[in-house]
């Protein structure tokens, strides 16, 4: 497994998808920053301590990052078949279940890293604008929230990555599904029950972005774990096609 993870890391270093994902994350931060120039109650939104770190979470999650993570995950799984490298891997021989698991672990790491990158950007901007208004507890609270966002979003979209990898039709589907699936979260947040159980809004219940009771949080955790189990179940049956 260690070797597979090392190999995946080497492969992804040669691909520019990582830089494109980083670019998308930076752009989301820039766009939310632009949105923060709106004046509300006599002051710019961005001048309120915590506004930027709070607002970047839903904007990034409902519109951009899940689709980017789903694209990244399905790309690294589908490319073995698409570029016909799976034949060489099979000759080594490589356990295909372990190979897919390694790819999912890489996607999981990226999901967390992208959210942490977003945290670093938003925190840096807030620190530059009003460092004295930020407290350690607030910053650590946001760090925890972003980490849980990254973890939860991976679990929420993992069935999509698993599904398209199984269908072998790839990345287009993953991106479109993930975009519509994440975007629907805006509407699901209007109902308390759906907010707890819809995977994307469940992530916010878990991370603390939405106020939630312990019962709601347990419900959200169960939904996200079920998503993870569903993707493991789908991937278990994944077999790269024999040529």
């Amino acid at each position: 497994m260690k070797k597979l993870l090392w190999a995946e890391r080497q492969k992804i270093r040669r691909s520019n998808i990582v830089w494109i994902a980083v670019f998308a994350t930076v752009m989301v931060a820039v766009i939310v920053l632009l949105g923060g120039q709106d004046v509300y109650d006599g002051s710019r939104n961005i001048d309120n301590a915590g506004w930027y770190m709070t607002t970047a979470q839903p904007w990034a999650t409902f519109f951009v990052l899940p689709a980017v993570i789903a694209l990244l995950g399905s790309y690294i799984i589908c490319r073995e078949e698409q570029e016909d490298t799976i034949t060489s891997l099979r000759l080594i021989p490589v356990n295909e279940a372990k190979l897919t698991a390694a790819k999912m672990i890489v996607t999981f790491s990226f999901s967390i890293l992208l959210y942490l990158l977003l945290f670093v950007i938003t925190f840096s901007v807030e620190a530059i604008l009003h460092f004295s208004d930020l407290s350690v507890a607030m910053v650590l609270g946001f760090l925890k929230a972003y980490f849980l966002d990254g973890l939860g979003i991976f679990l929420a979209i993992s069935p999509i990555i698993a599904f398209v990898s199984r269908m072998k039709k790839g990345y287009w589907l993953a991106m479109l599904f993930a975009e519509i699936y994440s975007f629907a979260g805006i509407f699901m947040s209007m109902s308390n029950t759906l907010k707890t159980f819809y995977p994307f809004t469940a992530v916010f219940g878990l991370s603390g972005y939405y106020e939630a009771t312990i019962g709601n949080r347990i419900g959200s955790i169960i939904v996200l774990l079920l998503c993870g189990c569903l993707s493991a179940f789908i991937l278990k049956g994944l077999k790269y096609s024999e040529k």
Partner: protein
Amino acid sequence: MLRLIKIEFLKLRRRKFVWLMLLAALFMPFLALLYFKYVKETGGDPLQFYRWSAFSYTIFIILPVVLGILCTMLIYEENQYDMLKQLWIVPISKMGYFFSKFCVVLIYSICFMLITAVASVMFSVLPGYVAFDWKSVLYLLKTCLEIGIIISFAMLPILAIAASQKGYILPVCITLVYSFLSFSLMTVNMYLHPLSSMAVIVMRNGDIPGVVLTQAINVPLAFLCICIWDIAAVLLANIALGRRK
């Protein structure tokens, strides 16, 4: 040119995913149906319903993302199978090739918006939220047709980026950022981004209820914004395709 467009559509027949993407046109009408059933009442005003089903997220997020994927697919799949060399040998003019793809995007976009319009009418009239009224239906069809045409011009930069790249990852990620940027820029400056400028043109009469624009409506400026981006896109595509061997 007409032959090129015909060939593009013949090629599309084999791509089921392109047709499946049209189902995304039903997404917002369906959500609007749920929204007005459980959260809000329309008060019998069809425009309230249509604002949700056709004039909100459909034009800022769903259709731009779908068109961005379509643009990337149209260009990437030919790159992937190394078809371009054969096309240049025929020979086909590089800009003719680019504009034939654009025509596909234009027609696709119009079809998408017409499906949205039909679904909006069905999802609002059949459950009885609004009474059937020719005037509002014709207004919806006219506006959807306008959106379908203008949005394809607003997405021309994405088609140009797709044409300038060999891969698909960058164009599709830029599509996400591009559509999100327009949504966000609506409250900052509506005349910076083609998609927000398109919204200005569509909402120029101020007859869509509940839409508050932060700046004065200036339709020529909105057209100018789209034109500048499109000219830049055509230049980029011309340079990029000219370098392609």
